[in-house]
């Protein structure tokens, strides 16, 4: 299988990349690791006349602390994030996840920004970043804007990113938040993932890889915010069950909807337990 011919652009600066995306509109795609885009092009699911290669824009690969946040450039590769000492010190759950995604070849090429923008429903990072309260910084000819990670992915392969917008970086607040991220992998894909962070007065619990995009579990969050130590067997299990029942989960080639609800419940309980262990 071969991608159809395209014109290749290799900008060196963010402003040049933005200008190219603006000029070619729907005919252009940002290109970084290619782990999703090239597969889609080879299989004929996607066709573009122009690819804008972001790999040689240094600004997009920077990983740094910026005040009270960890800033991860959109073109940072999974392997770079996994082995980065700033990330493993500040947000160890992100370093761990990026070190376990797919296989070493995907981790050497695939980027965190590509993962978010492609919005494959079985991707792990959107769920973790949503629970961490991360913000995504996008730029276009209209200027910069920030979008909460939890509101970025809106459906399968759908995000709020406009065609001419470029994801610059992900900013993760560094307020001391113990977080648990757990996932269940079937073959080489995650079939249920969950992130939980609980502090007195505030809880964030998200489940992903089960519906078309990550979802917050409202009843579970409300319960844990008022009772962070809620027993797993009582009200907590009931809240998780109700939240999962409300999600729009369909049968697919990996699992029936019922089985997936079961896995979702299991993985959410594991994420809460792992968050509690991290706090203890």
């Amino acid at each position: 299988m071969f991608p159809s011919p395209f014109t290749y652009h290799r900008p060196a600066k963010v402003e040049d990349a933005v200008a190219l995306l603006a000029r070619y509109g729907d005919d252009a795609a940002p290109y970084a690791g290619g782990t999703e885009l090239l597969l889609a092009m080879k299989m004929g699911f996607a066709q573009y006349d122009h690819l804008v290669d972001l790999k040689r824009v240094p600004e997009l690969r920077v990983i740094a602390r910026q005040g009270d946040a960890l800033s991860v450039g959109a073109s940072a590769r999974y392997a770079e994030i996994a082995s980065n000492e700033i990330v493993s010190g500040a947000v160890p759950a992100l370093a761990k996840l990026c070190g376990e995604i797919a296989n070493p070849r995907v981790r050497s090429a695939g980027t965190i920004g590509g993962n978010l923008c492609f919005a494959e429903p079985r991707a792990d990072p959107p769920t973790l970043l949503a629970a961490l309260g991360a913000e995504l910084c996008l730029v276009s000819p209209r200027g910069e804007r920030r979008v909460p990670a939890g509101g970025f992915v809106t459906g399968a392969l759908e995000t709020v990113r406009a065609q001419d917008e470029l994801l610059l970086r992900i900013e993760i607040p560094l307020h001391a938040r113990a977080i648990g991220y757990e996932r269940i992998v079937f073959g080489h894909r995650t079939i249920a993932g969950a992130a939980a962070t609980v502090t007195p007065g505030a809880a964030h619990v998200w489940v992903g890889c089960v519906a078309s995009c990550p979802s917050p579990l409202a009843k579970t969050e409300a319960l844990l915010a008022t009772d962070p130590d809620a027993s797993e067997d009582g009200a907590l299990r009931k809240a998780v069950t109700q939240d999962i029942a409300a999600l729009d989960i369909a049968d697919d080639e990996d699992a029936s909807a019922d089985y997936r609800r079961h896995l979702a419940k299991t993985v959410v309980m594991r994420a809460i337990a792992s968050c509690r262990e991290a706090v203890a």
Partner: protein
Amino acid sequence: MTQAILDITFILNGEAIEATVATHTLLIDFLRDTRGLRGTKRSCDMQVCGACTVLVDGKPTSSCTTLAVDIDDTAVTTIEGLGSADALDPVQQAFLDHNALQCGFCTPGFILSVKALLQINPKPTRDEIVQHLNGNLCRCTGYHKIIEAVESLVP
């Protein structure tokens, strides 16, 4: 830079190369068809099986899902760049000594993946070896012999 073809320069198995490639050419086709390096195998074509693995600046890379233009200014190692018939690379020798191949189709990808592992982690545990090789599929050996071959390289 705006091109449908592009001039690239890179190091291939130690040799400096200049080439002109169509921008939609995949690295695997450039290596196999233009350079005649048939040790790199195409199988799943979707970054799952590892048969097409080459090293780009030492990193394991799926040549089926990489553009030839992406290797501009890099150093690429294919299986042909390791050892020789008279003096095998230690990883190749270990696979031979431990009968870690049968049909051999997946072997170039496994060997290059192991080279990459030992480069960043010279003393991997058995679990780390298994975890690293989860992206290389072998349908003959059942993996035990491969893992034993890699373990034999750990001092």
